[in-house]
């Protein structure tokens, strides 16, 4: 029996075989799905903030794009995946509310999350083969590492797969 494993906000999970990974209602957060098609190891990170170096409270490593992706990839390698074969798909990073106030950096958090995830993946030389990011709506995603399918559901929009 295959399971669907839930990944909470500021967390990451990995799986193998026919199991799937899901995260419900991604807003400004980014869902980074990585798999190594050969070993069948896959992971999904629910990144909440771009950079662990921007704050002193950075002990919660899964929360940030830089530390979260690094740790998840390391764990995937432990489970038998090879970084050289990994590919990534990313979704999320929406701007849920349109503000134009002084706290603009905070408002742009979705966009900055996407940029930070891309930067980290580039550093690790993991190519991004598909993405569905930005805009102003939430996304519920399911990642199937066996096939590489990454399905995205949004309110009032047809489900799609990237």
């Amino acid at each position, binding site marked *: 029996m295959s399971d669907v494993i839930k990944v909470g906000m500021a967390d990451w999970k990995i799986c193998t075989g026919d199991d799937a990974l899901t995260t*419900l209602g*991604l807003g400004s957060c980014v869902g980074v799905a990585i798999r190594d098609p050969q070993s069948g190891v896959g992971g999904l990170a629910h990144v909440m903030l771009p950079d662990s170096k921007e704050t002193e409270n950075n002990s919660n490593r899964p929360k940030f794009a830089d530390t979260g992706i690094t740790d998840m990839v390391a764990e995937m390698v432990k489970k038998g995946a090879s970084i050289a074969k990994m590919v990534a798909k990313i979704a999320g990073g929406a701007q*849920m509310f349109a503000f134009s106030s*002084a706290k603009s950096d*905070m408002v742009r958090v979705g966009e900055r999350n996407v940029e930070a995830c891309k930067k980290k993946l580039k550093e690790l030389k993991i190519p991004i083969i598909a993405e569905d990011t930005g805009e102003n709506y939430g996304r519920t995603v399911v990642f199937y590492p066996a096939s590489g399918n990454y399905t995205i559901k949004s309110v009032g929009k047809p489900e799609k797969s990237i």
Partner: protein
Amino acid sequence: MSDLNMEQLTQQYFDVLKELGNIGAGNATTALAELINCKVDMMVPQVRLLEFNELGDILGGEDMILVGIYLQVEGDIDGSMMFTLPQDSGLHLVNKLMAGMLGIPEKNIEEMEFGEMEISAMKEVGNIITGAYLNALSSLTNLKIFPSPPQLAIDYAGALLSVPAAEFGIMGDKILLIQTKFSDDVELDGYFIMIPDMDSYEKILASLGLM
């Protein structure tokens, strides 16, 4: 930077914040009742310190579709405030409001949807009731509070909550919120969530002579 550690907040502070929530939401509920000319009940507020992964469950599940009205607060208190309710509750509210104001008969909720008119009315509702909440808070604490115009989104609970969560995430691994549930005799239930930043908590507590 703030000296106040969220983990160390004592029961006394929780009680004070709960009382603030009570007064703010009490005022907002009254404004709402007057607006739709209908009795609105309010539950005792809850003050909760939550892990991020628990956040999705507070509004009934991360994939619940909600109407969220969000505004930022500046002045002596910085932070954000959110007012959420299920879609049909939102339509119910807008229906009552428009029927009252325009003198037209109430529509059947099943035939309604969130168009431009409904969204605009919903924003106005948000404006009035969040304003009432913040006014009460401001006069109680003698602190200046300037709310931004409200923004509205209809989306998954998780997606809506990710916005305040990201703001809080910079400061810590937990989110502190004052949550008040309200309902009327027909079908209206929603939440007020007030999320001041950590420095503002100190100011609020100090203004009440507690720090």
